[in-house]
């Protein structure tokens, strides 16, 4: 499996996605400062209370970053899976003496791992930078506690896994439709829909865990459907 994953990295230029992660990190760093600064525009505006305090900022930022990484994941799936399985290259891929399931799982693993690792690194870097700057020039009228740091770590991992899982679900839709736009648009719509449902409840743990469980179950179901389709696929 590890060899197959290395082959996937060799076939697809992973540098593009590493550069994308850097660019996303820079943009999102700017975004977290915007979120932190928003309540200062009009301190009396009740609507802006959503952005007050580290807990709210961490939750909102993580949800938006999850959407961004889910879309990046769907772009990767478009290249690693949709393009390969819907084009003529699938003729070659299926003529190798390796089980189709193994090749497919290697693709899923490489994209999922990349999504989780990239998002975790991006989140931690941004939060670390933001945290340090807050000790020098605070924008938020709160102090950073151990609880805040725990919240960052927990939310980051949950959202990174969710981004990878939603990416898999979007890939499944794109695979059935044999369409790259369908993959990317599905990722965006899925994130938007789920984020709108759970965004208001993200400050407490239970809804976040339910959200994570739903995305994991969804990803497992979609993966099985696609693998089954893939195994008996005629080209």
């Amino acid at each position, binding site marked *: 499996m590890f*060899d197959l994953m290395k*082959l996937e990295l*060799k*076939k697809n*230029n992973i540098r593009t996605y590493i550069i994308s992660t850097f660019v996303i990190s820079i943009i999102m760093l700017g975004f977290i400062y915007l979120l932190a600064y928003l309540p200062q525009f009009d301190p009396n505006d009740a609507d802006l209370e959503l952005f007050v305090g580290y807990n709210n900022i961490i939750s909102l930022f993580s949800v938006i970053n999850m959407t961004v990484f889910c879309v990046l994941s769907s772009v990767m799936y478009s290249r690693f899976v949709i393009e390969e399985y819907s*084009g*003529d*290259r699938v*003729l*070659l891929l*299926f*003529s*190798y*003496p*390796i*089980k189709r399931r193994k090749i497919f799982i290697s693709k899923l693993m490489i994209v999922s791992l990349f999504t989780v690792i990239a998002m975790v690194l991006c989140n931690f870097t941004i939060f670390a930078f933001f945290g340090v700057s807050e000790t020098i020039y605070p924008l938020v009228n709160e102090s950073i506690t151990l609880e805040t740091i725990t919240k960052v770590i927990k939310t980051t991992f949950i959202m990174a896994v969710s981004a990878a899982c939603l990416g898999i679900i979007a890939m499944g839709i794109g695979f059935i439709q044999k369409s790259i736009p369908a993959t990317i648009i599905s990722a965006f719509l899925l994130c938007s829909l789920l984020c709108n449902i759970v965004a208001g409840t993200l400050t407490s743990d239970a809804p976040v865990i339910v959200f994570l469980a739903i995305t994991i179950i969804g990803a497992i179901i979609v993966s099985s459907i696609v693998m089954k389709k893939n195994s*008996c696929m*005629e*080209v």
Partner: protein
Amino acid sequence: MTNGLAVKTIDLVKTFDGKEVIKNCNMTVHKGSIYGFLGANGAGKTTVFKMLIGLLIPNAGNIEILGLNRVDKENEILKNIGSIIETPMFYEHLSARENLEIHLSYMGILNSNIEGTLEMVGLKGTGKQPVSKFSLGMRQRLGIARAIIHNPQLLILDEPINGLDPVGIRQMRELFLELVKNHDMTILISSHILSEIEHIADTIGVIVDGQILEEVSLSSIKDKFLMD
């Protein structure tokens, strides 16, 4: 098990949307021979080849390749097949050499003479060039290189000389003859033009509307089925 045969299909049937496109296809290819598969466009040549490789599943019938049952020993068979089906596709941003390296990795082969193979197909010195810069003829040659680099026992080539110039066609014919003579390969090669394969094939199978009408030695075929 059928000794001495590279390919044997028995009453192979394939239907698409209820329409029978391959009808009771019986093909016999002897080891160490070149089998020319002749038929007009749309006759069913590629469909038969795809079934041999496992890209399509027959609705009925049986396939034995290198004495092994197609369904039971799929991976073992695929290790010993080199193929070109339709237009060969590559990873465009990678070089010819890298494309071949990827192919070898998938085939589970660690060491192979990549430069030697490129030279065999007339692509000496092009190994470092990205495939995106290759002409149609060069791609076809690289496709042939990929099909033979892991030294398979059976080569399945679907119209492999499309896009080659007359010199290239001659070179590839010589290469195919050499592969059979010196590398103990068996070649199954398709074409819709008799003159393309008549110079090299030992046996020719003629497929018309999904049915193999006859498998005959080359000498008698010209009088029976003259095709453009």
